[in-house]
């Protein structure tokens, strides 16, 4: 049971948390990161390569961890968060306290639980897997189906847990389209003879170089794109899976048999930080993510020392998360300066004199 005081406590050691820590740390603030998992890095730990340039997730993780000298406490389970006169006090299960005038929530997202889309057969048919499961296979450099054979035909299903009122998520997760294309290319590089069909409603490829990936997957890797949302899956006796859908460009019902189905699961809000502090719960938007998502980013310019960054404020790529974290780190820096320092006019230069902490 100990109490440590910092300038800023960051919850979550993913890309956003690490980026904000590195900026604040370099500006001379004392920062600590609390991480619920054993190892820091967030979702970088479950990914193999990253879109759009197939960079190694492990290398990016190492680079981000090397970028900050801030202490990372992990695994930490937060028991309570309380408001104090000086800011916030976060208490963990061991009754250790981490206190700071500024609190940054960077808890990221949670991949959609595909079992909830029962008609797609995840958790029922062994050859139906998610994009997260496929990344694990990539990390082991071995992609095989349930009977240990290299698949000859694979279907990618877009929008699983996204744009779907039946699972309570009407938003687009924004990153699954490009993830599917990236994974299709990776599979084609690994197993050149594999036949890949992607089932999509729209392809939402807003990011830089995403369209290049799409065209490369079509022209160079011969990935097929079939427009239509999957209706249901059935399993054959040989464990191959039949998909039923409409080819909406042809306007006719259609079916295909594949050896493996990959569900591109969406990004859902991570509820682990909720019910600890009313001020945090108040900031939850209608879609479950924090903030209002307005242009002036009012939800992030905080006057009470509570900040949010990364995928906890909406589905984001790593680039977008770290960009937001950088902007929020600057806001935190200004906030702390106002709170902790006094400006004096010196004969030679303006000086900031620290008066507390």
């Amino acid at each position, binding site marked *: 049971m100990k109490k440590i005081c910092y300038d800023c406590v960051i919850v979550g050691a993913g890309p956003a948390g690490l980026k904000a820590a590195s900026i604040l740390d370099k500006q001379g603030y004392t920062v600590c990161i609390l991480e619920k998992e054993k190892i820091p890095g967030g979702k970088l730990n479950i990914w193999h390569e990253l879109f759009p340039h197939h960079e190694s997730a492990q290398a990016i993780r190492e680079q981000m961890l090397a970028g900050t000298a801030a202490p990372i406490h992990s695994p930490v389970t937060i028991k309570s968060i309380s408001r104090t006169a000086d800011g916030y006090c976060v208490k963990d299960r061991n009754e250790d306290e981490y206190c700071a005038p500024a609190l940054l929530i960077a808890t990221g997202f949670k991949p959609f639980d595909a079992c909830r889309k029962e008609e797609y057969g995840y958790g029922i048919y062994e050859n139906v897997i998610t994009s997260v499961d496929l990344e694990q296979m990539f990390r082991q450099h071995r992609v095989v189906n349930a009977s240990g054979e290299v698949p000859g035909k694979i279907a990618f299903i877009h929008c699983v847990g996204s744009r779907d009122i039946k699972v309570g998520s009407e938003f687009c997760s924004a990153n699954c389209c490009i993830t599917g294309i990236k994974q299709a290319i990776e599979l084609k590089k690994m197993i050149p003879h594999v036949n890949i069909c992607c089932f999509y409603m729209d392809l939402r490829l807003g990011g830089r170089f995403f369209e290049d990936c799409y065209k490369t997957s*079509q022209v160079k890797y011969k990935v097929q794109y079939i427009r239509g949302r999957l209706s249901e899956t059935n399993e054959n006796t040989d464990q191959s899976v039949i998909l039923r859908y409409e080819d909406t*460009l042809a306007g*006719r019902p259609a079916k295909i048999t594949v050896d493996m189905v990959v569900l591109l699961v969406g990004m859902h809000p991570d509820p682990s930080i909720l019910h600890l502090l009313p001020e945090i719960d108040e900031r939850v938007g209608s879609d479950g993510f924090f903030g209002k998502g307005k242009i002036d980013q009012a939800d992030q310019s905080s006057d009470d020392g509570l900040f949010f960054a990364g995928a906890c404020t909406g589905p984001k790529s790593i680039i977008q998360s770290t960009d937001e974290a950088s902007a929020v780190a600057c806001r935190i820096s200004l906030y702390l300066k106002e709170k902790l320092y006094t400006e004096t006019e010196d004969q030679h230069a303006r000086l900031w004199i620290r008066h507390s902490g």
Partner: protein
Amino acid sequence: MPDFGFGIQDDLMIDHDRLSPAYEAVLEEVPSIAGCMSCGSCSATCVSSFQSGAGFRKLIMLLKNGSYEQLQQALDYCQFCGKCLLVCPRGINTRRAILEMRKQFKKQGDDMV
């Protein structure tokens, strides 16, 4: 002989397990057709589509789905004007692709060899 009351409806379902050898053959000759994203620019500009009911993107779709009969009918209407080539945002050699499709179905006349 009088007709019976029940006709047999052709199966409307598309079977994507069935291969399309003609698509593979055309793809070999004109690799750029793989880049079609079914935007429909070609259909809207096509001078024959109001007769054939199919612009270039639909020809590709019929070819991929193995609907050869419908495809052959639509191919007859192409005048090789090349307007689809001008508007294609993916730079597909549509004119050449249609010629290859017609070769596949031995539809080319002497004037087009």
